[in-house]
């Protein structure tokens, strides 16, 4: 058994997780050549996909290019738009007297902090006095405020003037991926419900039974069945580890909002607005906005939550339907067990504050396609490697998300509860303790699987008003002239971008008409 070469991978579940994984694997293995590893995806025709995770990370550009989908086709068919940042509104403190506060977590800094970190000079007031950190190191905040796009029609596909990702309609995305997989990549699609998971004597999955087709056997199984986790959770009994004692939100209510007219501006940033018992997301697609309120049912009622969302949307919300989703926040004790790897919600879920879900699906699929074992004999080594890597990634993601809450000075009970040290991971407490008088450095990021790089931490720390006292090491930051030069360069680029970049909606319209060139 253990020497038999793996020839057939079966994916249970569609949606973004299932189809992105199928595309990645089939492309890597060259599945349309029948002598290579084959990929089959079994998808229930009835179960609707969850539809969260509509923001992505810049890695999506590489992913689309790798699996062979053109950017123009993707933007048009998935009602997608460009995402350049997340704008955090009212997270720092409760707004008083009609004033609100905000900061940006951007994708692009002009200078890579690994080469030259402007942060200490900004902190010590040597550059950018009176300016936010983000505006001192990047022009992307300004671009977002002006509603401009990160590229022009003259840039080739996937190439940007600023680093960017996408907002997309997850349902349409899954459909685009499915068509691409089936038509071009040699993936076999079986619409059916899985009724039983069959194990062999060693406890490995040998096949699944369905309601319409014969048993489907396979050598390796990927569980993309969502929260139900039919394979890893149910059949293999891997328990779910809840983190509801760390991240306190447990429900989301969502409303799709149409634009008031064809020329309404399309925001090129996810807007995350802090509320009484959670936060609302506002994601602009090309045809509508997706909005939602992520909240803690212990700190507000479902009715009040829906009202909060409607208040956020304003009068446009009238007559629009709201949908409530319960969120199981946490992750499986392990993600890979024997010959089964869970990807997507079956593996883990955290609130979409930093749009990490789709990114972690991409990362899982990448790792699986590169490391697919030849046969069972070395599988356990890869299992260990993958489990360690993903446990690390999820823990770091949770730390990073918690950091947004912990640093807030908002006063409502939900926010106060978030500052209770018993809800804060020790790794985060230790890091923040250190950073109160030391700079964040690349030594804090010594694992290549860090989901969030150094600069992301700086954007959030300084945006949230974290107090960092560097006075005692001031003499170590002596390259003031270089800092001033770099800072001036950022400011001068900021002047120019206004003239160079089109607004989002205009560019998206042009793309629909002409597309981006491949070169």
């Amino acid at each position, binding site marked *: 058994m253990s020497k038999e070469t793996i020839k057939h991978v079966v994916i249970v579940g569609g949606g973004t997780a299932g189809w992105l994984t199928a595309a990645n694997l089939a492309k890597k293995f060259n599945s349309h050549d029948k002598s290579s590893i084959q990929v089959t995806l079994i998808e229930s025709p009835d179960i609707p996909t969850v539809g969260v995770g509509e923001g992505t990370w810049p890695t999506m550009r590489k992913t689309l290019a790798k699996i062979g989908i053109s950017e123009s086709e993707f933007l048009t068919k998935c009602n997608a738009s460009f995402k350049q940042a997340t704008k955090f509104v009212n997270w720092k403190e409760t707004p008083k007297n009609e004033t609100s506060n905000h900061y940006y977590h951007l994708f692009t800094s002009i200078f890579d902090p690994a080469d030259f970190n402007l942060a200490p000079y900004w902190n010590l007031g040597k550059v950018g006095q009176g300016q936010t950190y983000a505006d001192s190191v990047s022009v992307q905040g300004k671009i977002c405020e002006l509603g401009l796009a990160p590229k*022009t*029609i*003259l*840039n080739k596909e996937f190439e940007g003037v600023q680093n960017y990702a996408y907002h997309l309609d997850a349902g349409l995305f899954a459909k685009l991926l499915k068509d691409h997989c089936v038509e071009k990549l040699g993936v076999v699609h079986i619409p059916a419900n899985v009724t039983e998971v069959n194990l062999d004597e060693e406890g490995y999955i040998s096949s699944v039974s369905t309601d319409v087709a014969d048993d489907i056997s396979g050598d390796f199984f990927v569980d993309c069945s969502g929260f139900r986790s039919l394979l890893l959770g149910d059949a293999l009994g891997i328990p779910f580890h809840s983190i509801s004692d760390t991240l306190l939100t447990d429900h989301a209510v969502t409303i799709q909002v149409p634009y008031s007219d064809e020329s309404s501006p399309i925001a090129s940033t996810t807007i995350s607005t802090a509320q009484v018992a959670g936060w609302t997301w506002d994601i602009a697609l090309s045809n509508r906005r997706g909005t939602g309120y992520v909240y803690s049912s212990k700190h507000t009622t479902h009715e009040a939550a829906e009202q909060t969302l409607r208040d956020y949307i304003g009068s446009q919300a009238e007559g629009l339907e709201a949908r409530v989703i319960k969120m199981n926040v946490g992750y499986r004790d392990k993600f890979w067990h024997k010959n089964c790897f869970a990807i997507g919600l079956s593996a883990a879920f955290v609130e979409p504050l930093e749009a990490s879900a789709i990114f972690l699906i991409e990362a899982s699929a990448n790792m699986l396609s590169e490391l697919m074992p030849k046969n069972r004999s070395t599988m356990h080594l890869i299992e260990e490697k993958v489990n360690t890597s993903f446990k690390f990634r999820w823990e770091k993601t949770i730390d990073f998300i918690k950091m947004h809450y912990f640093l807030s000075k908002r006063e409502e009970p939900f926010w106060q509860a978030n500052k209770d040290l018993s809800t804060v991971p020790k790794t985060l407490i230790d890091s923040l303790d250190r950073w109160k008088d030391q700079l964040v450095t690349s030594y804090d990021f010594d694992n290549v699987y860090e989901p969030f790089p150094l600069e992301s931490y700086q954007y959030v720390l300084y945006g949230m008003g974290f107090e960092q006292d560097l006075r005692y090491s001031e003499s170590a930051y002596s390259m003031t002239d270089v800092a001033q030069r770099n800072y001036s360069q950022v400011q001068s680029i900021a002047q120019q971008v206004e003239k160079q970049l089109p607004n989002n909606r205009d560019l998206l319209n*042009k793309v629909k*008409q*002409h*597309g*981006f*060139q*491949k*070169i």
Partner: protein
Amino acid sequence: MANVQPISSTQHGDVKIKDNATLAQSKNRHFAPVVVQEFVPASQEFPVIFIKDSETGTFRSIALLGLKPEENLFYADDAWQATYKPEGLTLSPFLLNQGEDTSLLCIDVDSDLINKELGERLFDEQGNQTEWLKDQGEKVVQYVEKTYATQNFIKLLLDNDLISSQTLNLKLENQEQYTLSGLYSIDEKKLNALSDEAFNALRKTGALPAIYASLLSMQRIHNLARRKMAQ
């Protein structure tokens, strides 16, 4: 920017169009559009290459006339100096404005060629189109057909992945250096790497002469360099 108006006898009854032998409107332009049917003659004097349209990002074929923006090395002493005249330039000030069902012949009213004294009349005393105007109209319509053929040709090149981005680095004898970017040209390596099947298919479309004309025309960059030196 062109100020375009459809031609009508009421508005333009007494308009005359000056002779445009000098192609003066090209004085400050560093490129001129060329259609695929012109590649062979144009390639004798100019590099025939591709650029992206600044509004739509789609590719256009052009004859390169200068080494930097707003420089036309083929315009001197108030006259067009090259032997070949890109057809698009000769049709000035006429344009075709294409709507849903009908196309209208228009003129660019800002053109210097438009006046009331010299040149060919558009309409006769009775307000009927002159033979000359009908002639020009025919030429414009045919030219527009040629631009469609050109777009098809460019699409053929893109589908066969034959175009690559080019940065031309030129060093003149007087040590001046010019770097021209944003240009695209036919990639000889890729052309040679085509499978027999793909190459034959290309041959049957009749595209090969234009492809080779464009390839060989890359040498004409030296023409530009010489003209620059002679300035």
